[in-house]
């Protein structure tokens, strides 16, 4: 953890300051979405931008996700670099066509003549608002060819991956976990450099955050932090758990994954997106395909029902350090 006496910024501030910096450097960047201008975003991730850049570059939109995400596509094709906010990922359903059939496919369908350089920022994960405001839906994007999907796990990566997204020629879905936005930059359980100094982070390269000879936990986004906490808990019991942060779901670092899996006796995938037909299956299948009988024992721990409203029920459904540790023990046969 940071030892600086200065209070560390919130994740949302890191996003906002990174955007501010990028907008200062690149006039083509515009920001649009619901409540991004006067309010500075419901999570504060666009704060100060409107004051700095005005209504030409920071636009509050009507509650018309199809219209304004489509507009971001058109503007991108016309030479701008829109950063468009889908307030909660749960709302993807009202604008999914623009995502699936337009932004994802224009490059391919034009034989590479058109690119759609935009960043679709969206808040994901459960902070207690039941089934329609707690989803992650990362696999719903990652399933569609043509979209890149970045999923930062820490304050530093919020900046590092965002910088890369802002320079990418393709549409990047940028998943901001609400807990990451709402907590301070020194709150992740491992040491990281001053997040606002972080350089661009390459897409498609996982990172190992913790070594462990007994089990390797693979996750993305905020679940990486919970996996890390679980690993610390397990260490107290003499179980050494490694922690892998995928960083981007697309491109997926299959090579790195297989490399990690090859040396892991057991592997656990943790996901706060739904289990079925999702990321956990993709990770395990990628490893099984590559390693066959040499693959470690593999298990998943993910969300398998809609998120319930009641807090105690929610905790039974959404992974926590405790539930991850438990899943790890079960995977090791000592649960």
């Amino acid at each position, binding site marked *: 953890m940071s030892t600086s006496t200065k209070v560390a910024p919130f994740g949302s501030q890191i996003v906002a300051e990174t955007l501010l910096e990028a907008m200062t450097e690149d006039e083509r960047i515009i920001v649009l979405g*619901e*409540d991004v201008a*006067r*309010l500075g975003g*419901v999570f504060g991730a666009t704060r100060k931008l409107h004051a700095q850049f005005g209504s030409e570059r920071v636009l*509050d*939109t*009507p*509650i*018309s996700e*199809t*219209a304004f995400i489509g507009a971001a596509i058109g503007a991108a094709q016309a030479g701008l670099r829109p950063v468009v906010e889908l307030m909660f990922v*749960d*709302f993807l*359903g*009202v604008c999914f066509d623009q995502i699936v059939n337009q932004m994802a496919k224009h490059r391919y369908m034009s034989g590479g003549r058109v690119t759609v350089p935009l960043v679709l920022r969206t808040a994901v994960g459960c902070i*207690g*608002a*039941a*089934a*329609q*405001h707690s989803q992650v839906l990362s696999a719903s994007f990652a399933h569609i060819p043509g979209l890149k999907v970045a999923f930062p796990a820490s304050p530093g990566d919020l900046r590092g991956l965002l910088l890369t997204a802002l320079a990418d020629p393709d549409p990047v879905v940028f998943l901001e976990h609400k807990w990451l936005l709402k907590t301070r930059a020194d709150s992740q359980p491992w040491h990281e450099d001053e997040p606002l100094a972080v350089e661009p982070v390459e897409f498609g390269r996982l990172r190992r955050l913790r070594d462990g000879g007994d089990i390797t936990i693979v996750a993305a986004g905020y679940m990486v932090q919970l996996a890390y906490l679980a690993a610390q808990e397990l260490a107290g019991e003499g179980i050494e758990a490694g922690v892998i942060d995928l960083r981007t779901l697309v491109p997926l670092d299959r090579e790195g994954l297989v490399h990690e899996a090859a040396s892991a006796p057991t592997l656990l995938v943790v996901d706060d997106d739904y289990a079925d037909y999702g990321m956990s299956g993709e990770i395990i299948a990628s490893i099984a395909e590559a390693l066959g009988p040499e693959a470690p024992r593999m298990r998943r721990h993910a969300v*398998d*029902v*809609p998120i*319930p*409203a*009641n*807090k*105690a*029920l929610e905790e*039974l*459904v959404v992974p926590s350090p405790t539930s991850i540790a438990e899943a790890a023990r079960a995977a090791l046969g000592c649960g």
Partner: protein
Amino acid sequence: MTFDCTVRSCTVSSLNPLRTYQTMVTMRIYEEAVGAAVETGEVHGEMHLGIGQEAVAAALAAALRPEDAIVSTHRPHLHALAHGVDPVAMLAELLERDGLSRGKGGHMHLFAPERNFMCTGIVGAGAPIAAGYALALRGTGAVAVAVAGDGAMNQGAVLETLNLAALWNLPMVFLVEDNGYGISVRREDASAGVLAERGGSFGIPGATCDGTDPQAVLDALEPAFARARGGEGPAVVVAEVYRFRGHYEGDADQYRSPEEKASWMGEDRDPVHRQRALLVAQGTDASDIEAAETAAAATVGGWLAAARALPMPDPARVREDVIA
């Protein structure tokens, strides 16, 4: 295009001011109790209250019949009360107990099939569903109400449904609670044109009313309901209101000026206070007014106690009810 009562020869009912007052006070206290439960931690999720918008719900209560359907929004409690949804089971659900939805739905996802009541947390998503109720109810004299905020009127789901409702001559009322904001975004920064005319291009009449006055709301609702019940198709009613709380409990709400808030929330415009003033002006006995207030408080107090007596949801059932 607005509907004209003289032309339609519908007679608008007069609300009983005292009973209406009691209803509104009950609603106000109900919402305040829910707000307090956020403070106590009994509610841990997002909470959107309808305080300030009671006059609309009180009028709605008078316009609705039990067999009508209503699909509400993320700010649904008062519409549920208006339609006779079990207030204790709802309160229990809001307090994350074994309530209306066994603690699984929560405040944006209330379902009362016995009243054809539901709501959704996705802005605009309720309108098509209300159209489905209307389709099923067509010809029975029952009406389906789609509630929308001003902000929701820009969502494709609502706009498509206006066309469908007009085309299929559905018995629907689009009730728009125009509180001037969608979270922080002002109506004029989000909505082109006049909301009551949104149905106009589809041939749907609309009317705007003072949403702080229950009688004014009912005056606007009744012809709309009468049209729909009579098989004459849908109508839009926009009620101009103000939300007294932040968008959600905990919202710093700095996007609305103190002057603006004061202009709407003063005694002269607060719908509950206004209704009280009406009673006083009409010469209602102070004791009757007080009795109504006491009754309202007692009622909600009783509901709250009953809701709190209900158990927490059964953790063993958390994975049930996904599919049969």
